[in-house]
């Protein structure tokens, strides 16, 4: 059998854990092999071993049948292995060509021969349908284009085996379609591809075979065409998973949050949000759909009170909170699940119990006259941890850092819901979580809605928005494009709006 890459019985340990335990994957010439697993299952570790970033403790790697020892990425490059990282490694004020030749600049005498390099890049781009302008500057091109530059970088280095690490997480649905097309082109030209992902839909759409890893162990390799999504999900998680969020129709009540012509300046001193208006009612989930960096962060920070409002007004139950400080807004009933749980959600070096009172500590019963009431804080933590299934080795006294991502997130969700807010602002509430935890958090968010709370959901995962929301507001380039009913729209329509195309404009 002609395998291009074989990783046989790979074992990799990190202090305290075995990241890869006796894992074998085999990649055939000209196929797309999906590597499926939850976060923390060991997918990235395995691919980092193949790319020479880690050394395995055991097992062998064979490239085209010959045993190889890949001690650093340069060797991987020489063997024709290339990797598109989840976070691109590009110099922003360089052109496409300059980025691609970085490290192996072609020279004529002592000057860099940009022109011939650009010509070759143009040819490669055409051959694989990448549609990249070799002279464009990275900062001027879209994220999807940047990804294609990363792909070109590998092709320029004559890579035969391409590893894609979660490539679709930064793309719009249309860009994902384009990427799929590119991957098929690459396959047809004889390249072999490993696709690291936890999205089953993509695997179904493009991969030939799928290797599933769970908790560092190999579960199996299946033929994608003859295996259902549900079966693959079960292999990944270890139990049956329900995909669809169960929720009844919404019964929206009075307006809880009113955003009126809101404009906010972003970190680059530009208007990150322009004349944004939106109402969120009690008993409904309003989703904000948009590609990353289109004003969502500015909107959230303005709502929470971390960013100054340039113009416009914010009302919570018709009370003007435009100038209200963060703490008073929390007391007025704004709860928020932050996008980055490590940066904004938790004090990682505090215990879980201390984190669970981060927003309410200054109030009775957690403190009186400035003195902490440890017993109450502890009991509160035990209750929230039990209610929200937060698992920690040492219970409430565990350091937050020692918890798994899912448990950290559940702790935050528990803390915020426990505030009994008027409105829950959930930003990427399931980012980086496994299917089981996602299911749980979605259920709790819908539960909040059913209890008559207002929920504002901001997510980059379009599926999450479509599944959870009652209404969807699409944001692009800091502007509200449109608001649609979730029941009557579809991925395609929202996807187009995310790219800035208003309804009725296309076709």
């Amino acid at each position, binding site marked *: 059998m002609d395998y291009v890459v074989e990783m046989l019985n790979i074992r990799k340990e*990190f*202090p*305290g*854990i*075995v*990241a*890869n*335990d006796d894992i074998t994957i085999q990649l055939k010439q000209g196929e797309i092999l999906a590597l499926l697993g939850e*976060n*923390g*299952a*060991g*997918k*990235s*570790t395995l691919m980092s071993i193949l790319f020479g970033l880690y050394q395995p403790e055991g097992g062998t790697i064979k490239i085209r049948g010959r045993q190889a020892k890949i001690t650093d990425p340069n060797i991987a490059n020489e063997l024709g292995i290339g990797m598109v990282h989840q976070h691109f490694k590009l110099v922003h004020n360089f052109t496409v060509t300059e980025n691609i030749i970085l490290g192996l600049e072609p020279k004529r005498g002592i000057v860099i021969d940009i022109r011939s390099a650009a010509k070759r890049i143009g040819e490669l781009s055409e051959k694989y349908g990448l549609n990249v302008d070799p002279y464009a500057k990275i900062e001027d091109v879209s994220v999807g284009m940047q990804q294609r530059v990363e792909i070109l970088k590998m092709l320029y280095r004559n890579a035969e085996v391409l590893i894609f690490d979660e490539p679709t997480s930064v793309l719009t649905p249309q860009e994902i379609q384009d990427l799929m097309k590119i991957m098929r082109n690459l396959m047809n030209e004889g390249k072999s591809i490993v696709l690291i992902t936890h999205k089953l839909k993509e695997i179904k759409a493009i991969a030939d075979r799928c290797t599933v890893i769970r*908790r*560092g162990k190999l579960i199996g390799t299946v033929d994608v065409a003859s295996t259902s999504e549900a079966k693959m999900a079960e292999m990944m998680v270890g139990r049956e998973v329900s995909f669809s969020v169960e929720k009844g129709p919404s019964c929206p009540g009075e307006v809880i949050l009113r955003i009126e012509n809101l404009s906010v300046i972003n970190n680059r001193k530009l208007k990150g949000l322009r004349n944004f208006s939106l109402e969120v009612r009690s008993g409904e989930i309003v989703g904000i759909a948009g590609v990353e960096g289109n004003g969502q962060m500015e909107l959230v920070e303005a709502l*929470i009170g*971390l960013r100054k409002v340039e113009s416009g007004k914010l009302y919570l139950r018709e009370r003007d909170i435009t100038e209200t*400080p*963060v*703490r*008073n*807004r*929390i007391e007025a009933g704004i709860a*928020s699940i*932050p996008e980055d749980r490590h*940066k*904004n*959600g*938790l*004090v*990682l*070096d*505090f*215990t879980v119990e*201390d984190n669970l009172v*981060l*927003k309410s*500590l*200054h109030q009775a019963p957690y*403190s009186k006259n*400035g*003195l*902490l009431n440890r017993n109450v804080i502890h009991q509160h933590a035990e209750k929230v941890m039990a209610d929200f299934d937060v698992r920690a080795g*040492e219970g409430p*006294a565990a*350091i937050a850092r020692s918890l*798994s*991502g899912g448990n950290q997130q559940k702790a935050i969700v528990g803390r915020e819901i426990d505030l009994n807010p008027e409105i829950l602002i959930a930003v990427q509430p399931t980012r980086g979580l496994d299917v089981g935890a996602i299911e749980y958090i979605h259920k709790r968010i819908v539960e909040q809605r059913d209890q008559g709370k207002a929920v504002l959901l901001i997510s980059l995962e379009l599926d999450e928005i479509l599944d959870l929301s009652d209404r969807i507001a699409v944001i692009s380039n800091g502007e509200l494009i449109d608001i649609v009913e979730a029941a009557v729209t579809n991925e395609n329509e929202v996807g187009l709006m995310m790219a800035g195309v208003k309804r009725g404009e296309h076709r």
Partner: protein
Amino acid sequence: MKVKLNKDYLLALVAVVLGLIAGAILIAITGNNPLEGYFYLFRGGLMNIQRIGDTLATATPLILTGLSVAFAFKTGLFNIGAAGQMLIGGLCATAVGLSLDCSKPILLTLVVLSAILGGALWGAVPGYLKARFNVHEVVSSIMMNWIAYWAVYYIVPAYFKGQFLETESRKIPAAASLKVDWLMNLFNGSYINLGFFLAVIAVIVIAFILNKTTFGYELKAVGYNRFAAESAGIIANQSILLSMVLAGALAGLGGAAFYVGYASNIQIGVSPSQGFDGIAVSLLGLNSPWGVLFAAIFFGVLQSGKGFMNAMTSIPPEIADTIIATIIYFAATNILIERAWERLRKRKNKGSALKKDLKVDKVGGAE
């Protein structure tokens, strides 16, 4: 939490032991007997009640500067300005002591308060600059050290010139001194003074603030993760300013303990070494108030015993300073000690496969 703390204290002890071993090797290299050297070193610090009093008196300013640095660390700030805060504290204390004339309890209270206020002001400036303009406190507090240095250089000869020497202030009256007769008598005429009790009270107060109050909780939250604290409604800038004010006040009190307690006047052109030693004390004391107390007393023993060691043997007194320096190195690199420890344990565990399998089950974030 408990288990982890114990491990940390163990590591600090390992640092001390390793430092002493390194010192022993040095003593041996100078051709002396290490055991004899250590015998006289510790005897010099602890042999009788008067020596113990001196040791505590030496440790007093270190407790306070160490506490100042440790408190700032806990709240996410690096107070490298303890020397300047201490100097200004001492200047204020001396100035009040020399200028006012009233009964001892009142005068002493004013002396101590002025030192605290002076130090607090010296901490407030970097704190404000950090909060308002994001100026790094290391830079601004080093600059404040020099301002304090030259302020003393100007003010002491101009207003409080000594009787014989231009380079130091007049001696403060007994009424303004933290030394009291009953205490000196109790310790057979040692230097020990009320400053030691103020330092212990400060340790208790800071431990209380950090562990039992919402104020301390918020300061720590800002220190560990400013963004999370801000998202939770804590005003980080206010916390930063207050942290530096308190840290400065502690070092200022240390200035009183040194200049109107241990000594009885202030010299110009000398930046107190306790300011920077406080960083070492804080490091060895794991930034915890009680840890600082013990680390400072330990350093006090070495400091006050080194003279005796020098007198009784031919070991140079610099060896004691070298030991302190080595201990600090080991304390600072205790992550290496921890790693070596883990490796040793792992090798031990490899024999029993069962134990290892148990560990394997704890699969967490592998990516």
